[in-house]
């Protein structure tokens, strides 16, 4: 019998305190070990995208790029507004992960349901919530998509079947399972999609939900956005068996590992899962490997990962990779790309104007929406 070898944990990144860059200075282990492998991975991703582009119409492709750019610029503006004090509380940005929400939501029907965690700006925008209403919500204004009462972590939009951002890690997973239960109960073909970070996989309720979903064959798609850090704790420091996609095997559930830096790979995997949900009423777990370029929230000191690591993932920037693929396949030229960029910038600027102009909620709103059927006392 061979001796079990336990690799000692590396000490946390030293010398980070006072480091202006806000990242650890010690080099981290890369997840792809050498430049050749990195290069090969990049080539493979681009080749996949070029092949996939041929399967989709121009309108869909342009919308996907537009939505990713909208989220990117919106989040950059949100970061700016946060530092200006216009946004309070917690503000978790989606920069780097755009391909996950955009690619998956593009594969859904408008009447399908989407639910996510507190890192929810991207999902709301991808679902079609107007940027004006999202920004106004971040500003805590009456014109926000949750009337200024939810804030950054609790965006809701019933008209677009966006069932919210939920801020207890993993809390949205059984909720979305229940939505899928309800649709099966009602006999519709609507699918419920739920997003969560890889850290939520350690919560008991993830396992409770997957068990029920497979047991009762619910049309639910569980999308784990594995950005490799639960706040400041690296996946390997928090999960004994860190191959998230394999967790589905405990429940006999279909599962896929997906490249989250390739928006079309996410699109295709979600399409397969949605077809399975609709045609067979079967759930799926997708592990989508992604990376957030910003901190966990706006108050993140960032001392748990290195600049080199972040830069390595920035080379895989899903927005840039996809724009490049579209150009190579001559779906877009530079002029068309600039047109989209200009449109996105104008919409984001407008969202700030809208949010600034939107009134604060009236004082009496403090006591509305506590009960749907209030009982006067």
């Amino acid at each position, binding site marked *: 019998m061979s001796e079990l070898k336990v690799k000692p944990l590396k000490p946390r990144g030293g010398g980070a305190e006072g480091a202006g860059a806000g990242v650890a200075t010690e080099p981290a282990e890369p997840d792809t070990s050498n430049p050749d492998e990195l290069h090969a991975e990049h080539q493979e991703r681009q080749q996949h995208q070029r092949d996939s582009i041929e399967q989709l119409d121009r309108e869909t492709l342009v919308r996907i790029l537009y939505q990713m750019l909208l989220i990117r610029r919106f989040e950059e503006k949100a970061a700016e507004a946060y530092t200006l004090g216009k946004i309070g509380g917690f503000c978790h940005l989606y920069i780097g992960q755009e391909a996950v929400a955009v690619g998956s939501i593009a594969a859904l029907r408008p009447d399908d*349901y989407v*639910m996510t965690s507190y890192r929810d700006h991207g999902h709301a925008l991808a679902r079609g919530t107007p940027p004006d209403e999202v920004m106004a919500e971040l500003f805590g204004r009456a014109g*926000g*998509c*949750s*009337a*200024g*009462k*939810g804030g950054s972590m*609790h965006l*809701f*939009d*019933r008209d677009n079947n966006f*069932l*919210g951002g*939920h*801020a*207890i890690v993993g*809390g949205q*997973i*059984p*909720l*979305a*399972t*229940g*939505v*899928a*239960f*309800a*649709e099966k*109960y*009602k006999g519709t073909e609507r699918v*419920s999609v739920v997003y969560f970070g890889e850290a939520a996989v350690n919560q*008991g*309720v993830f396992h*409770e*939900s997957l*068990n*029920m979903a497979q*047991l009762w064959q619910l049309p639910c798609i569980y999308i784990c956005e594995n950005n490799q850090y639960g706040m400041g704790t690296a996946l390997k420091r928090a999960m004994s068996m860190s191959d998230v996609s394999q967790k589905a095997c405990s429940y006999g559930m279909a599962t896929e590992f997906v490249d989250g830096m390739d928006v079309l790979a996410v699109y295709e995997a979600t399409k397969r899962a949605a077809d399975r949900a609709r045609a067979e009423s079967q759930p799926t777990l997708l592990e989508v490997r992604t990376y957030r370029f910003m901190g966990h929230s706006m108050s993140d000191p960032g001392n748990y990962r290195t600049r080199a690591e972040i830069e390595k993932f920035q080379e895989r920037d899903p927005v840039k990779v996809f724009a490049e693929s579209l150009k190579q396949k001559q779906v877009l030229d530079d002029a068309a790309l600039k047109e989209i960029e200009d449109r996105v910038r104008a919409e984001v600027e407008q969202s700030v104007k809208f949010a600034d102009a939107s009134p604060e909620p009236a004082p009496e709103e403090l006591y*509305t*929406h*506590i*009960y*749907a*059927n209030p*009982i006067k*006392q």
Partner: protein
Amino acid sequence: MAVITIREALNQALREEMGRDEHVFLMGEEVGAYQGAYKVSKGLLDEFGEKRVIDSPITELGFAGLGVGAAMAGLRPVIEFMTFNFSILATDQIINSAAKMLYMSGGQFKIPIVFRGPNGSAYQVSSQHSQALESWYAHFPGLKVVMPSTPADAKGLLKSAIRDDDPVIFLEQERMYGNKGEVPDDPDFTVPLGVADVKREGTDATIVARSLTVPLALKAADELAKQGVSVEVIDPRTIRPLDIETIVNSVKKTNRVVIAEESHAFCGVGAEISAQLMERAFDYLDAPVKRVSGADAPMPYAKNLEKLALPDVERIVAAVREVAYL
């Protein structure tokens, strides 16, 4: 009017509401094939089938959350906890999701759900199975908390709770499932949420009792009547929102109050009622409000100790005599 048990009354309420609205379903541990751990759901599986009477795995947080999600998508779930002690595992979904969804969505998502099951002590089931948790749930705006004490109230209030568009915590009592009483035959009989009931009129002192302590308070009132003390017994029936008006009106008449409760006293519903009486009826009180509560200790197993831990008729009688300066 038929005389039936609380168990039968609850069963009737479930059957009638499931018959009335196909969006209503019942989920919980052993609610189906086993016919309910306390037989409240007896016969429902046969009548409504596996689609609407669903045996869940032992996964309280999971099925509580599933219920809230189903409510977001338009169903009206009734989620049974085998006992409310197990609901402690589900409090994240009850408190963080159900109670707040309407508010934090700016009014977009109501949560019409009932969480029901026995609350409080049973017979020698020791510390982890004997807790009365109404003050936990009553603490949170967004939840409604109901505690029936008679078969008629149990049926009428459960029907109202199922029809209500808000999350309702419906607290039954295992020791009371076999209690009998008259229940109106009208299938549309309901009891409104948020309205207290004067279970007995009196002039000398008020006992505010709920759930398990209501029958005890009525016995205490009988005893005290023999001693020449006329006692009014008020059952709030709904803890949140609390019909404090009815209690205040009684106090204006009797000027003396005893609150009888099975739960621990500390930070309890009795403490809340007492505080509200200070704010609203201070000038009418002729004696300090007196609480008769469960012991400030985990529930012991030993029969003699368990008896000591719970309020009884003698302690309630003594408390009333104390506030009446007798």
